[in-house]
């Protein structure tokens, strides 16, 4: 595993999750250096990335520990970030 490509929250999740190499326990955002070539696309699909929007460098998937290890080793994968929850910025009263 190239931990240099994993963000810190993903590293924490990896450390806290049981060692099942095949369980798809890791929802991640994948950032590539460029939109994928056909060969890279095949690698992504093999790793469980089911939808790769055409021409895009950013995609997401629920990956296993083994998939993370495979993709982090690819030079064309720039970063793997844990999917996190955002929230809307309005509606509440500031009282």
């Amino acid at each position, binding site marked *: 595993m190239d931990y240099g490509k994993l963000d*810190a*929250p993903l*590293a924490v999740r990896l450390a806290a999750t049981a060692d099942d190499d095949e369980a798809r326990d890791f*929802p991640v955002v994948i950032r590539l250096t460029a939109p994928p070539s056909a060969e890279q696309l095949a690698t992504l699909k093999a790793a469980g990335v089911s939808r790769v929007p055409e021409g895009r460098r*950013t995609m997401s998937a629920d990956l296993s520990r083994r998939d993370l290890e495979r993709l982090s080793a690819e030079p064309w994968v*720039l970063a793997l*970030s844990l999917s*996190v929850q955002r*929230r*809307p910025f309005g509606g509440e009263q500031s009282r």
Partner: protein
Amino acid sequence: MEYRKLAPSLAAAYERYRQDDVSSLRRQSASLGWVSVDEPAKPTRAVVSLICTPGATLDKVGYEGLEINRGGDRIRTAIVPFDGLETLAEHHEIERIVSAHLMRPYLDAARTSVGLDSFQNTTSLTGKDVLVGIVDTGIDPHHPAFTGRIERIWDQTLHGPGVPEGAYGMELKGSHITQSRDTEGHGSHVSGIFAGADSTYGGVAPDARIVAVKTNFLDPGIIAGVQYVFRIGQEMGLPTVVNLSLGGHYDPHDGSDSMSQAIDDETGPGRIVCCAAGNEGTDDIHARVPVDGTAVKSLPCIPDIKGRRHDFMLNGWYATDSRFEVAVAAPSGHSTEFQPLLPTTQNPAGTYDLPDGKVEIATPETNSLNNDRNFFIMVRPERRSLSPGLLPTWQLLIRGSGASDRGTADVWILDTSGHARFNGPMTSDDMKIGSPGCASSVITVAAYATKTTWEDIDHDQFSAPWLRLHDIADFSSEGPLRDGARKPDVTAPGAMVVSSLSQDSEPDRELTLDTAHVALQGTSMASPFLAGVCALLLERDNNLDPARVKKILKDHSARPHSHAGEFDQKWGYGLIDAAGL
């Protein structure tokens, strides 16, 4: 009775009618068009709007005293005795029954205060032939402000095959859009400001076409939602503006995170994204910790200002020319060991069990997206404060790895409830704009108060003493970004703004003006206002890119009593003056 077809206010009224609660009905009768409440000889009746299936005839709907206006197609008006509501609700051609409401003869203050009416009266721009995208809690497809203009809804919360951008959720078109509901109401309100067609509280781009993404608020859902809207815009051949009234603080606050980068990838000529700055202007969620050699700095962290037990996280960033070590001390005084930077060949996360709870610390050598250093800490408190009445306070401890390691660590505290805070002198009011508001191509919007008093549905008067009329809202999050980049970009009306009320939501009654409108505040409201302005600019010139749009906006914005072009970390380049655009 099919209660699901009744708008909440009408369902509640029907129940009160069944319980013979005449006093409550009388109180609301003036605003909701209920008649004969006090006349025993006549049945109590309601003036309602009927939302029908396309081509509905309603020929066989019959009930004594029921009068249905035969004009209109999908939306009909009717006067119905309360006893006849059940007959209407069970009719297969009627999808929804909504109380009528009284219109008020004034425009909302937000539009007039920034010269929008003047601009639109002069230019006749309405957002025609522009696509607007909302990635939010959904949209009320029944709301008359959006009738006939919603092209598609991608509801990521429904079970389905998804879309090319994401293999989850359901894409809805045509009459199927009614399968999606906005139970939170946030997205409908945002959509109303952006593009609502409403004679009383009109949106900024009322002729724009609409695509709504009801998102799951996870990073992948939001990114895919933005990609989806721009693809639809491309397929329709329309310039497109996307609004994002959402965000968080998991990122480095410099626009280098994957979501910000993905959104930057999407923008370009005729492709604009607006984003809320955030509402943490008065919240102590950011601290600047000056580190000088091996001296330990201690930053107090309160998991929940209301004293409840919550997990919280610490997200710290600093320049790569220093090496810091971090530890966490629990309220009991027990502490983890200091964890140094760990090489990329091993997992940089360590786990520590303390009597007060579990602590997980990650200290990777570097971050591949911006080459800065990051530490991330998850704290899971397992028991309440040992001292009743005192808030349990944890401490983040930071020191340099060696005597020459100096610098400033910017740290954000975050949790799912939004109640975690720092304490002490290292808290800092700046740098509270996180992703995606920190994306460089995004137009990031601060909030301004144009309304501080209002009358609710019961004709009770309310005020917002925490706001100053015609001033920036204190809750609006400050910039700049951690790398010094200037954010927010501009300021727009964001408190209190009256807009569309989703019939499937349950807002505070005191914020509800009538059955179709609610007043809300937040940079969530300022962002779609500005996004609407962008839609008008794209209608005029569909090739404008983010840089040109920003220049136009900045040239027509200023703080009160200041000149255009002056940046302020709270206001950005100031309040938009649409009249001269």
